[in-house]
């Protein structure tokens, strides 16, 4: 806490040293538009109300720029009740919302422009996700709590909707380049304009990094080395976090029609602390994700009807090569080249969704929705040099072979989903409204699920709005959980039911004189039918949780704003009455933004992560708390209209660890000293709008 106090004090010094008026003589405009956020809104695009009352946070492009974020991970860490942790394999981010953790993080739904980027294989965004750059992002909406009544499957712990920039949000042609620690380079071009009557937005972002190489002390092979008196492990050794990325989007619209194309290519993605929790500097993965979304939206379809239809196609897949599940010399020399298993999975998703708003009943707004989704998992391949045996038997060696049939880790499968939904927002008395929603989903594999949503909103007073919310959500079993094979420690089960969560929330939104707003959310949830590999995947175990999130946003002066949040949660594994583990029980975030004379701007953010407990059987001591301090200094419109920025992340070089997994089947944590994260790093950036 002393460290936190010190950081807060340094923050205050930055603010006080930056005092001073500017823009003298432009009081008329300042009084008209007020603070910066407001001018961004008032000179930007029309904002839409969220689809249903919920506990939500919105982060705009301007805020993303101010904090110097380069990836959505950095943006999402600023959201109350959300902590970005990491899994061992490829150091993929896991977005922990309100204490809900699982290895693949399938309980969080991520959408890009309202379309899921979920991979059905593991229920996450891809085993080779490789991050997502932010330059073409207009805003990110984060809804904590259940959203299945609107979004369907996996809107469970929360929903993250990433909205990309439309033509009118890009001033012509923008180009930029940044370079930083770990040989990180990023270049981008955005274009927005009108071409022959069509609104066109185009973006291309290229990036590459060698990534940090913080050291892992011991890994799974270290455990085997201890048992077999060998010395094959690469630990202690640095993690491998390098990757290359291409991100490109095209958004064309005219009248009611809009076509969006997107491509995410991730190449030479390294293995983090190893796919099998054993360091591997040889393995690489790549993933490509392509989407085509064609939508028709006619808000004046008829007097009372607002109609929207979307067809979307999403192709996603990853492949890997030279994945060393264990290094050379594993199992006492039984595998002189190492235990090699390099998988590949491809998927096609077709979606047709239709929704309509009806406003023909007095005091009611009704939303109807229906759709069909078809998901096809195809072209599963694997190259490996072993046949797995049940523990404690070692795998049986074989020549490196491209296997097929029952020897593969999974199989070609498909799933069809059909749904209907209805939602009614009823203003039943002055200052009171009740939103009732219900969605029925039919899955070709596990059957039916019905998920309701209730929201009672009371405009309590001029300053205060009170919301009482209830929602039920589900997570569909992944194909890994249903159809895994040839792997004795993770066996698929086609008879799984979805995971279920019931959440109750009480939320207060308070505004004081326009310059200060605050929110307090209290929540309680109960998860049921949690899917775990035992080693056969089973619906087993319940988890409950409760907590609160406190957020504020204060425009101290036209030049200075402060926002921050505090989150507290307690989550319990009901099977053993023990903390559910992994996620921080407390988190504090503070960001101070200050505009200085001559277009200089400085942002300081502090993030304090506390109280990360272990799961029941894991006897290791709790994960150490940490505090990071980031600083971004920006100068706009310099040397002929260029914008410059320098960001230092983790300025104090704090030691940051994310918890490594505990293997409950084998009774130990393969990476005993957790997953080390990047120390201090710096990035410099230049951009220009032509």
């Amino acid at each position: 806490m002393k460290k936190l106090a010190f950081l807060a004090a340094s923050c205050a010094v930055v603010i006080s040293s930056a005092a001073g008026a500017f823009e003298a003589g432009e009081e008329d405009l300042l009084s008209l538009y007020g603070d910066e956020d407001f001018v961004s809104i008032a000179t930007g695009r029309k904002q839409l109300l969220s689809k249903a009352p919920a506990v939500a946070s919105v982060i705009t492009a301007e805020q993303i720029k101010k904090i110097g974020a380069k990836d959505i991970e950095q943006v999402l860490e600023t959201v109350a009740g959300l902590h970005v942790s990491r899994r061992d394999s490829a150091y993929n981010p896991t977005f922990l919302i309100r204490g809900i953790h699982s290895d693949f993080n399938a309980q969080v739904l991520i959408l890009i422009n309202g379309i899921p980027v979920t991979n059905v294989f593991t229920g996450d965004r891809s085993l080779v996700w490789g991050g997502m750059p932010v330059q073409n992002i207009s805003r990110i909406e984060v809804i904590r709590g259940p959203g299945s009544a609107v979004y369907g499957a996996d809107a469970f712990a929360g929903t993250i909707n990433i909205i990309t920039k439309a033509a009118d949000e890009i001033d012509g042609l923008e180009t930029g380049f940044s370079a930083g620690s770990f040989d990180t380079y990023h270049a981008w071009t955005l274009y927005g304009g009108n071409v022959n009557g069509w609104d066109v937005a185009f973006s291309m972002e290229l990036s590459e990094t060698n990534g940090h190489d913080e050291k892992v002390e011991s890994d799974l092979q270290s455990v085997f080395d201890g048992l077999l008196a060998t010395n094959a492990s690469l630990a202690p050794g640095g993690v491998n976090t390098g990757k290359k990325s291409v991100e490109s989007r095209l958004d064309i619209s005219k009248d009611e029609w809009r076509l969006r194309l997107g491509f995410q290519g991730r190449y030479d993605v390294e293995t983090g602390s190893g796919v099998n929790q054993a360091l591997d500097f040889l393995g690489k993965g790549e993933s490509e994700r392509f989407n085509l979304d064609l939508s028709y939206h006619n808000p004046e379809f008829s007097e009372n009807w607002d109609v929207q239809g979307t067809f979307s196609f999403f192709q996603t897949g990853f492949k890997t090569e030279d994945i060393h599940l264990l290094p050379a010399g594993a199992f006492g020399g039984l595998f002189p080249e190492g235990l090699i298993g390099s998988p590949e999975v491809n998927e096609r998703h077709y979606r047709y969704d239709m929704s309509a708003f009806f406003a023909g009943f007095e005091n009611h707004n009704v939303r109807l929705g229906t759709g069909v989704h078809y998901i096809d998992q195809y072209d599963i391949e694997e190259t490996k040099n072993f046949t797995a045996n049940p523990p404690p038997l070692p795998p049986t060696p074989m020549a490196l072979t491209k296997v097929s049939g029952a020897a593969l880790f999974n199989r070609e499968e498909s799933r069809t989903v059909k749904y209907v939904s209805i939602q009614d927002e009823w203003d039943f008395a002055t200052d009171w409204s009740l939103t009732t929603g219900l969605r029925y989903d039919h899955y070709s594999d596990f059957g039916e699920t019905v998920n309701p949503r209730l929201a009672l909103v009371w405009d309590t007073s001029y300053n205060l709005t009170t919301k009482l919310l209830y929602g039920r959500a589900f997570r569909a079993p992944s194909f890994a959980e249903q159809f895994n094979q040839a792997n004795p420690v993770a066996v698929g089960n086609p008879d799984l039911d979805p995971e279920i969560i019931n959440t109750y929330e009480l939320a207060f939104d308070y505004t004081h004189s326009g310059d200060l707003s605050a929110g307090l959310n209290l929540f309680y949830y109960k998860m049921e039918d949690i899917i775990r590999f035992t080693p056969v995947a089973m619906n087993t175990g319940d988890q409950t949780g409760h907590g609160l999130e406190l957020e504020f946003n204060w425009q101290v002066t036209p030049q200075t704003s402060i926002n921050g949040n505090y989150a507290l949660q307690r989550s319990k594994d009901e099977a053993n009455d023990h903390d559910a583990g992994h996620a921080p029980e407390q988190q504090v975030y503070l960001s101070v933004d200050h505009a200085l004379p001559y277009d200089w701007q400085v942002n300081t953010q502090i993030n304090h992560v506390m109280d990360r407990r272990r799961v029941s059987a894991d006897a290791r001591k709790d994960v150490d708390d940490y505090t990071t301090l980031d600083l971004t200094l920006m100068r706009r419109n310099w040397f002929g209209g260029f914008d410059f920025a320098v960001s230092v992340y983790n300025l104090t070089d704090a030691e940051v660890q994310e918890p490594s997994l505990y293997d409950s089947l084998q009774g130990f944590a393969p990476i005993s000293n957790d997953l080390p994260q990047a120390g201090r790093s710096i990035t410099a950036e230049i951009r220009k709008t032509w």
Partner: protein
Amino acid sequence: MWTKPDTKMRWWSLRFFPALCLLLATFAVKAEGAAVAVLYPEVRAPYDRIFNDILQGIEQQANGKVVTYALKGEEGLTHVKGWLEQNDPAAIISLGSHGKALADNLALGPKVVVGASMLSDLNISQGVLGISLTPAPEKLFSRLKQLAPKVKKVHVVYQPETNTWLINRAMRAAKDYQLEVQAFPAADVREAAALYKKILKETADGAQAVWLLQGDPTLDERSLLPTILRNAWNKSFVVFSSNPSHVKRGALFSLYPDNVKMGASLAKKAQNILKGIDQDVDPLDDLLIAVNVRTAEHLSLRISRAQEREFNLVFPLK
């Protein structure tokens, strides 16, 4: 099928990106020689977007070339004069608060059109020409009747030295909308506070409204505004404003500048002044609307989806 792209081909653009930037810069040099010169203050982002939009509107409307000059702080007039002599424009549009001072100090006669600034009776008496940032009263009244048709009486407090011209125009326009405007002159914030206290005491139903003037020196935004808005909520009367940030705080609606269209109107006004057919200060006609739907619902005002779609800004934002 997956094919591994050629790494060399894929990354060349990253290595040469800075060079590409410089190359593009050479195409971005603006041409010289002008029919209209625009002076505008150099302000930091995101405020600069306001002036960029206005400049875009001017360029769309102006016949011939437009040259621009970004004023840095309290820049000496000599430099500006020299720049104007060099470009010899037919008309000058001066934006922002400095614009008024420049129009005076440059002594360039009727060629200067002032925009993006509040214009007062004092400015008018000094012969300043232009378009004020203040929304035209008739546009405000039209929206008021559309959103809250029951309103019959509008109360407004104003400083005579600043807004008499606007109030006179409002009085004339009110009749067309079956409205009665009760205008209270106030010399300062203290006098205005007493007047608002009286108005708030007497205003107690949906047939009355309070109009908050943007930029009027008598409106204390820190202490008075929250009191007015809280009273409006408790007594269910309408507050509308010429300032969109008041809507965020709880006023029912506000009209605010459509900057691109305002730029076009300024260019048109400059053309008309040159032709000698326009010698006035006008309030702003190019307007967008911000509405607080929470306040509307509290006032039991029915807003149709068609109406909501027309709104440019809707509060609360989520």
